[in-house]
């Protein structure tokens, strides 16, 4: 009884529900969007199929067939050949350190610029914005030259330092505008309680801005993870390479057969999809934050 009355209640509360009927046209739109979604996913599906094919299966049935069995040797061979576990660790160390350091520095900068409103903050912000737009090609040779001079060339530390600076430029720009809207009453109240500037930052500003800082962390992590150009130039020895660099360099050498190439691509896709699933909510929210500013 109650469920019937509830169902009847819906159209009564929404008199224009008739506008949103599932007309044939509506189904046509849904079908064409579903086709688009399939086209977008198709490359992932093909790669997955071929990553699990044996070379014999591939050569007799071509790239489009469904694998005849679950052949894991190709993935295992590739993993061992490039020492993929070590590449994952390198990528995690580099992206994690950059994300943490860049969030800390962005908070410190944004505290001075957004809340402290120090003199000349507009020109300082413009400098950060410029630093963020500069292409990496304009920095690469001097950085290459300098890092060799100070003995940091081909170290993970060099990439951590460089990307901390690059990501901080964006983080400062975004976070300063977020913090300039920070409720003044809360700051005043904390000061009345006798909190010093650092205490206010650490005990008040950081906890209240935690969602935004979380978003920045995710962005910095994924962006750094995906970087290719500077890591390729700086991390030339095998034991320092990140996942994208190792895959990109191997692909360039054209030494892999078709099934091993798809195994390598699948191993590159998996971490990205894992991050996507873990961070999905934070990411969509974060993009909203970035878009409004």
């Amino acid at each position: 009884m109650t469920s019937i009355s509830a169902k009847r209640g819906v159209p009564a509360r929404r008199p224009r529900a008739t506008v949103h009927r599932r007309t044939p046209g509506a189904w046509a739109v849904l079908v064409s969007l579903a086709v688009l979604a399939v086209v977008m996913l198709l490359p992932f599906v093909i790669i997955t199929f071929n990553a699990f094919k044996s070379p014999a299966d591939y050569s007799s049935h071509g790239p489009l067939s469904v694998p005849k069995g679950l052949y894991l040797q190709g993935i295992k061979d590739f993993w061992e050949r490039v020492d993929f576990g070590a590449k994952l660790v390198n990528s995690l160390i580099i992206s994690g350190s950059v994300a943490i350091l860049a969030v800390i520095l962005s908070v410190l900068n944004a505290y001075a610029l957004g809340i402290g409103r120090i003199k000349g903050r507009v020109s300082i912000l413009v400098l950060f914005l410029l630093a963020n737009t500069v292409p990496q090609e304009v920095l690469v040779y001097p950085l290459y030259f300098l890092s060799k001079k100070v003995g940091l060339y081909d170290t993970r530390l060099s990439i951590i330092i460089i990307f901390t600076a690059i990501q901080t430029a964006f983080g400062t720009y975004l976070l300063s505008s977020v913090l300039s809207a920070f409720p003044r009453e809360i700051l005043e109240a904390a000061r009345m309680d006798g909190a010093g500037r650092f205490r206010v930052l650490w005990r008040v500003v950081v906890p209240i801005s935690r969602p935004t800082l979380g978003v920045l962390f995710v962005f910095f992590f994924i962006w750094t993870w995906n970087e290719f150009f500077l890591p390729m130039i700086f991390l030339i020895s095998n034991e320092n390479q990140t996942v994208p660099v190792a895959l990109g360099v191997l692909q360039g050498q054209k030494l892999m057969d078709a099934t091993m190439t798809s195994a390598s691509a699948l191993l590159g896709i998996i971490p990205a999809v894992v991050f996507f699933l873990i961070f999905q909510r934070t990411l969509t929210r974060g993009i909203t934050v970035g878009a409004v500013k």
Partner: protein
Amino acid sequence: MTQTLSAPPAEAVSKPTGRPRRGLSYSVYLIPSAVLFVAVILVPFVMNIGFSLTKWDGIGSPEWVGLDNYTKLLSDGTFWASFGHNVALVFAMAIIPLMIGLVLAAALFDFIAKRFGPRTAAVLRACVYLPQVLPFAVAGIVWAWILAPDNGALNSALKAVGLASLREDWLGDQKLALYTVMGVMIWVQIGFPLVVFMAGLQRVDPSLYEAADIDGASWWRKFWHITVPQIRPEIYVVLLTCTVAAIKSFDKIFILTKGGPGGATTVPAYYSYQNFFEKTQVGYGAAIATVLTLIIVAVTAVLISRQNKAEGADR
């Protein structure tokens, strides 16, 4: 009791001296970044300009040549062609995905979500967004493999459906390569505007659409007169970030074509890399990178000022 009584005078005393100190102590928080920025961005940037005024192979001592590298650039066909390819990439990475993203976002937001439920819309959105989370190096490997001339998935599929005559060397044909790269870039990019625009649509006042519905406005009219103007800030953000990203393109070209065949897909970022590390013409590479920077800064300035003007007109 005595504590609370004595506290206010202490505040009053410290206030006059506190003011000048206030500015100082906040700037302290900028010092770590300032050091980092001078070392990683400012000094290298100035050094790069210095390099661009020399002839240098990266090993010996640089030889001062003044503006020679820049005058050489003016008559370098490869350099001009590379900017032409960059314009194509701006279309493939900014303009086309922006337009597709707008229509898709509107369709998902006020058509699919209302008729088939928000979950359906969210799943479709996630499918379109997925390529965005891949490192481009990986997306490039996927596509280079699909587009391979001999046994690539695309050519095999064409053969399987009886269209064998349409098979091409997608990335190896001088006339085709740039269009193929553009197609791959559209696949990579459309998720970004879609997600940004769908988020933006959430803050549009639904009563605008209801009023238009009462007036019997068609879907396209609502799209043009409500959706597009309402999310104009997001459109500018997407246009700016995607255009700058397109002009900076390096990894896409490096993985897919290495600038080839025969320079058909060279872009300035890749051309400067070639000069730095393959031809060891550091001065010339530095000059290309400097010009590239000027162009990006100019494009950014133009887009931001147009955005400010548009926002001013709204108010």
